[in-house]
């Protein structure tokens, strides 16, 4: 028997050895295969910068259904699997087919099984399960293992899972295991269910995963906003970890928002426990917790307004609105002003309004602080005591005399406004409460006398006590010192209108102006310094007689702005500077393209040591392009047709091949050495890297073809190299030695002048050693109610200064030694911008001079920088 089988084996071996084609067949096969290889890779193979064949992918794409059905032969299946390792599009197609199959799978017929076997199996199975569960319980193995930890209930928009460096599209009905990271795109709404029945509603750009535990599931929220309708947890608890606080619940409805500036937990119903640094806080319905002092509370109703169940939540919250108001009041500082009795006296057509605290009463301490600062700084002291400095001091002394004389005369606030009365030209006015008319009049007259002495008898101020009196003088400025009111304006008519409003205890009409409402809302929050401008009125002044073309209207960012508020105040001891543009209508053009505040994952690729970083979160590029195309079509100026012709000429669908491949985030950073050349990087969000890369390669091939026909013939050479499971691309222009490298990593495209910068960026992202986790960066984040930002600019002054000092010192230029003094200033500057449906807010916790100082230093040393860089360059 054994010998027979051995013979059989020998025979089989001989048969195998003998089954191959003859020389001619082999040549034909080899020839066919080579053609296919060229077709798949793009023809010819050697031109790595050429377009990867559309037909290759299209061919594979056609094979996907057969592969899914199991009817594709093995060789083709192997080739397709190989292709899908790199082709997002084909992989997505397969995934969709697999997802679509899941629903009917439940309806498949079940084979008949004998009853005794069935019940016996069930009993045996149960016993095994109990034993296994007990064992796994003691072994601590059970909770973290589940293939269906998360089920996607519904979704609209882009939703994907992150696995390693790959992104995979997610469909409704998909299930995911513990530890799998899911992320929603912009304009995406999705609802997922956990194993315990808890429902998570996901806002756009939310990234999270779920881990199992004996006490219940834990949602790890990397960024974004979720509203959780927690099921009854029995003896366990559902937890949410945000990195800066832990939230635990039993059965309740609550929202957790986590972003750059911290976390905000808002409770709609039930009770929520929040733990941070060992401190526990219990929140009830309507209450809110913020993980950082700089993150202002926001109405709970607003926090959940985006939910599909918002009306239900708002009803719940109405019952606890009193409590909500009490929470808001906590943040108001006693030093701020919460109302202005003077603003109501202004005429209705007031379009510029500025209010400042009574700086006169603070003048003494202000001047003292200035003099102390000068005395402490030898360099400033030297200038202060020079001839010019002494002259300046004499003028300052005069000013002090005037200001000190007015101390205690005025109320808490000065108002400066520009108004129109009955179609007049714009008229300025200054208002303040007068607490001592006699002193006020005496000081103004004394000032008049001093000015008259120096200016040939001209007395600029005419002090009046009744604007309606006969025979009033007509000097440049009328200073009315009324009963408890001081008003100064060149217009007697304006003063009369204010006097009428003051006498009747009514209003001058400003309260009926929409700008007044905007200002009043700012007073509700407390103001210190504030400037409010009615934009259309100012724009009318600036553009009087100029009619905008439709082109200008579309891109004019001010078109939809109703008002602008610029304010500065201290919040929890930190300066808060904000400029708020309120929209009167849905903005168009660049303003509309800015996304609402969303988590910016690109920041994870930037280190805490970055000198400069700036990022923006835009709307979906497809939406932006569609809006532009719609405008171009409406404009009927031929631009739409030109765009269509361009697409035809280059053979590329810009909307679907490029715009649809791109996400909304873009970030630039100087992160690393600044010499010999700055270590810059650009990080772009990408949804479909395969499609984008194909488009890039195609465009390169087009550009190179065009260049061949040109005079210099320089080419753009694209090279590819596998790096850690991904591909590193390098793009070199043969006309210079400039090379740009890029890689696609976890839904982002990272570009840099060196591979090492990209490699480090990936490490920052994977290890969490990133700017967003830097205490300095977090501390510099502007306060305000938005957790995230639509755009931001950040610089670390000390990093840049170190480089400048190094250059200066090595050059031995002592004249720049004052740079050392600048180290005492604020190290980080941060300015953030966020847009909502109704307004655009620019916010910073730093002073403007902090920003300007760095620009000044960089500008001053630009030449030295260049020389230094050339010297270091090998």
């Amino acid at each position, binding site marked *: *028997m*054994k010998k*027979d*089988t*051995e013979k*059989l*084996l020998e*025979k*089989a*071996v001989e*048969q*195998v*050895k003998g*089954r*191959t*084609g003859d*020389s001619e*067949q*082999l*040549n034909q*096969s*080899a020839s*066919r*295969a*080579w053609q*296919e*290889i060229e077709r*798949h*890779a793009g023809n*010819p*193979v*050697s031109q*790595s910068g050429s377009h990867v064949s559309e037909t290759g992918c299209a061919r594979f794409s056609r094979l996907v259904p057969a592969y899914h059905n*199991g009817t594709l*032969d*093995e*060789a*083709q*299946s*192997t*080739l397709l699997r*190989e292709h899908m390792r790199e082709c997002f599009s084909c992989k997505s197609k397969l995934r969709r087919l697999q997802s679509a199959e899941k629903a009917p799978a439940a309806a498949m017929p079940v*084979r*008949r099984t004998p009853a005794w076997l069935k019940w016996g199996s069930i009993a045996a199975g149960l016993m095994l399960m109990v034993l296994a569960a007990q064992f796994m319980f003691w072994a601590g193995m059970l909770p973290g293992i589940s293939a269906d930890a998360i089920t996607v209930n519904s979704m609209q928009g882009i939703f994907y899972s992150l696995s390693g460096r790959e992104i995979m599209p997610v469909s409704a009905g998909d299930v995911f295991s513990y530890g799998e990271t899911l992320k929603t795109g912009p304009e995406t709404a999705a609802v997922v269910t956990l194993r315990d029945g808890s429902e998570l509603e996901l806002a756009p750009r939310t990234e999270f995963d779920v881990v199992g535990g004996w006490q219940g599931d834990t949602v790890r929220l990397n960024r974004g906003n979720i509203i959780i309708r927690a099921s009854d947890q029995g003896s366990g608890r559902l937890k949410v970890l945000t990195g800066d606080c832990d939230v635990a619940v039993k059965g309740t409805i609550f929202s957790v928002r986590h972003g750059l500036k911290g976390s905000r937990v808002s409770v709609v119903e039930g009770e929520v426990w929040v733990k941070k640094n060992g401190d526990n806080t219990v929140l009830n319905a309507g209450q809110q917790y913020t993980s950082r002092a700089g993150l202002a509370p926001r109405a709970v109703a607003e926090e959940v307004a985006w939910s599909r169940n918002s009306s239900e939540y708002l009803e719940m919250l109405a019952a606890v609105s009193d409590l909500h108001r009490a929470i808001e009041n906590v943040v108001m500082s006693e030093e701020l002003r919460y109302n202005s009795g003077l603003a109501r006296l202004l005429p209705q057509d007031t379009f510029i309004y500025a209010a400042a605290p009574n700086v006169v009463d603070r003048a003494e301490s202000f001047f003292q602080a200035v003099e102390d600062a000068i005395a402490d700084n030898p360099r400033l002291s030297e200038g202060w005591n020079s001839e010019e400095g002494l002259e300046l001091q004499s003028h300052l002394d005069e000013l002090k005399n005037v200001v000190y004389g007015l101390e205690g005369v005025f109320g808490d606030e000065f108002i400066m406004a520009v108004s129109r009365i009955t179609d007049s030209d714009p008229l300025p006015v200054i208002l303040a409460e007068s607490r001592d008319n006699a002193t006020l009049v005496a000081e103004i007259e004394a000032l008049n006398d001093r000015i008259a002495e120096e200016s040939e008898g001209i007395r600029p101020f005419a002090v009046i006590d009744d604007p309606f009196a006969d025979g009033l003088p007509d000097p440049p400025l009328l200073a009315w010192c009324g009963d408890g009111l001081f008003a100064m304006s060149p217009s007697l008519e304006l003063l009369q209108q204010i006097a009428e409003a003051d006498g009747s205890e009514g209003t001058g009409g400003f309260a009926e102006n929409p700008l007044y409402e905007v200002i009043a809302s700012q007073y509700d929050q407390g103001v210190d310094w504030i400037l409010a401008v009615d934009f259309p009125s100012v724009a009318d002044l600036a553009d009087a007689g100029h009619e905008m073309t439709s082109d200008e209207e579309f891109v004019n960012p001010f078109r939809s702005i109703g008002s602008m508020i610029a304010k500065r105040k201290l919040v929890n001891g930190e300066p808060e500077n904000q400029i708020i543009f309120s929209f009167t209508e849905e903005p168009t053009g660049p303003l509309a393209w800015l996304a609402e505040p969303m988590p910016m994952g690109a920041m994870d690729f930037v280190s805490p040591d970055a000198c400069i970083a700036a990022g923006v979160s835009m709307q979906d590029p497809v939406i932006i392009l569609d809006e532009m195309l719609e405008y171009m079509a409406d404009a009927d100026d031929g631009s739409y047709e030109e765009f269509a012709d361009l697409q035809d000429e280059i053979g590329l669908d810009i909307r679907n091949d490029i715009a649809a491949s791109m996400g909304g985030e873009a970030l630039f950073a100087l992160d690393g050495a600044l010499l010999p050349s700055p270590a810059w990087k650009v990080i772009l969000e990408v949804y479909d890297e395969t499609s984008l890369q194909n488009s890039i390669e195609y465009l390169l091939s087009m550009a190179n073809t065009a260049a061949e026909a040109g005079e210099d013939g320089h080419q753009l050479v694209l*090279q*590819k*190299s*596998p*790096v850690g499971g991904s591909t*590193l691309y*390098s793009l070199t222009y043969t006309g210079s*030695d400039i*090379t740009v490298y890029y890689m696609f990593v976890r839904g982002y495209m990272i570009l840099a*002048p*060196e*591979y*090492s910068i990209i490699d480090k960026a990936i490490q920052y992202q994977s290890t969490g050693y990133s700017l967003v986790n830097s205490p300095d960066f977090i501390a510099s984040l502007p306060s305000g109610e938005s957790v995230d930002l639509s755009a931001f600019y950040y610089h670390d002054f000390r990093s840049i200064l170190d480089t400048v000092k190094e250059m200066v010192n090595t050059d031995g230029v002592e004249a720049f030694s004052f740079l050392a003094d600048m180290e005492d200033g604020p190290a980080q500057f941060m300015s953030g911008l966020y847009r909502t449906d109704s307004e655009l807010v620019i916010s910073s916790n730093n002073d403007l001079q902090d920003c300007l100082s760095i620009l000044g230093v960089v500008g001053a040393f630009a030449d030295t920088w260049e020389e230094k860089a050339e010297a270091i360059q090998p």
Partner: protein
Amino acid sequence: MSAQPEHLTEPVSSASLKDLYEQHSRMILSTAWRITGKSDDAEDILQLIFLRLLKSRSSDLEAVTGGYLRRAAVNASLDIVRNRGKHQEQSSLEESAALRDTGSGDNPEEILRSHDLADALCLALSRLNKRAAEVFVLREIEGLTNDKTAELLGTTPNTVTVTLHRARTSLLETLSSWEGLSERTR
């Protein structure tokens, strides 16, 4: 520019790839054809191997030898046979289950009767330990010496001898069981 990754060198050029293709494509086709038994499969394997090479670095390409390509062909071919076998077994088992349900018979290896001897051997090879299968093909089917096989696999000739012996024993057992089944179902 600062240091770049060492592997970032020139992309694969058509000349070097074409040279390799000219030298070894027929050998790859022959090997794959023998194991899969199909010219179409062999062509696909040839494509697969060279498409992978296309994505590799030029420095890697220089290291590619005929032996490496032969191993690649053997493994890719066995993968195809292995997957083919799984699908066939699955459909066979489903058919058998259906037959059992209808009381028509009990013959899960029914499908093997349709194979010729060469196919049966390749199917049996695909079920072996991958290393053992590779050794058997290189030695017995491709006709490489012990030393050459050991060199290709990065092992010693003795190991090749032992692995080959185990592979033969295993194959004999498999073929024997199939032979018995075939006898019984005839």
